[in-house]
């Protein structure tokens, strides 16, 4: 579990393209709207580079929470 990237989804920007749970189902799952949700329990090791997952979100809604609490984010413009 600890080897999983600390993803966070910005709900204001996620509109449910579903790329996150298609690409990294061990880290994300869809809610009933089809919006991405970070899984709180993981049933396998991470299979993708975290940066790849962050970049795959068309809305740049996925962040990686770093230790200091800062978030690294896709280029939301």
């Amino acid at each position, binding site marked *: 579990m600890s080897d999983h990237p600390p993803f966070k989804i910005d709900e204001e920007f996620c509109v449910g393209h*579903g*790329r996150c749970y298609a690409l990294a189902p061990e880290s994300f799952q869809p809610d*009933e709207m089809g919006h991405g949700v970070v899984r709180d329990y993981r049933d396998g090791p991470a299979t993708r580079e975290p940066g790849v997952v962050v970049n795959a979100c*068309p809305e740049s809604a996925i962040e990686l929470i770093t230790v200091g609490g800062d978030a690294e984010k896709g280029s939301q413009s």
Partner: protein
Amino acid sequence: MTENVADKSVEQLKQERHRDYEVYPQGTMQEVFDDLADRREKCPITFSEKGGFWLATSYDDISSILRRNNRGFVSFPNIPDGKVAFGQKAQIPIELDGPIHTQYRKLLDPLLSPARIAAIEDDIRAVANDLIDGFIETGQCDVVPQFAFPFPGINFLTLMGWPLEDAEKMNEWVEIFLKGVPGGTEEETLQARIRASQESRAYIQAIVDDRRANPRDDITTTIVQTEFDGEPISDSDLSDLFVLMLMAGLDTVQSVIAQSMAYLAEHQDRWEQMFASPDSLEPAIEELLRWTSPAMPTRNVAEETATVGDMTLPRGERVFCPLNAANRDPKYFEDPDEVKFDRVDPKPHVTFSLGAHRCVGVHLARTELKVAFQELHRRIPHFRLVEGEKPRELMALTWSVDNVKIAFDPAG
């Protein structure tokens, strides 16, 4: 085109950046792509006096504008010349914005969620095979009328729980809405559209009445029974919504399949590559979605001002955002006009739009495409264009091709 943009009036900017764009272009798609590329390079947002709209061409500008729907932009009217196509009313939900739009999305998104679509995948596969059965023994297929056009229409009926026998009737109406009367006068097209509109509304009204009287376990019943703030959706709004859902899923899926098959007929190595391993198909479909990109939304400045590229535009200005221009921006896609299945972790395409109006049918569309290509490949491992037949490019508010006639070894 950079200094002191802020000091210039909109009228000045419109003059300086004037470069007309033809929404219904003549010529070839490649010529239009070359024109878009030239604009992107020289002045990425130009003003077309013809039609009175701004044209964005870069990935960053287009994605930024679409993401700001409800945050400075609205989608009504969602047409570059601003003329409202079918009467004055906003189309539901694509031209609704703000809270009412959110209510519709909260209704529709769960009904078209990945889980709901997975539940009808077998039905979609059966539809694909029925259609293939219809031509497989002849060794030829006219892809659009025999597969790409009926396929999403029948799937829509399956999704909604409407009788499959009605597919033909429905396809006829949609053809008239989208294409008018080929070779006919404007008046003939107008009359045909009015007739198709009356007939389709009457048809849908009968379905709505039936679900009110005999509720079933289907999506249509759920929508018919929905209340927003204690009020049911009116009959006329239900009819608008159902027509739009049908139309939105038809032309687009059809276009992606038709353009892809036309391309693959001449690139059979790519047809193989798509199925090289179990993991090959998904990224290949994403690349085909990027490359075929049929839809072209428009957004309107809805606040006092909004930033568009390096400009500040006032309320009411329209910005046309052809998604295929964003998807061919060389900043993110090397050799953008090429189909490349081996792009490494590519930038996501914007074929389904971004922001609040992101295609509600995205999971259905991806499943339809996956199933269509799987079944076509299983049953037609090799094909070519029929000798002497060339696909015809169609460029309007949806880009597509027809006359995609393929030949193959007849089999079972």
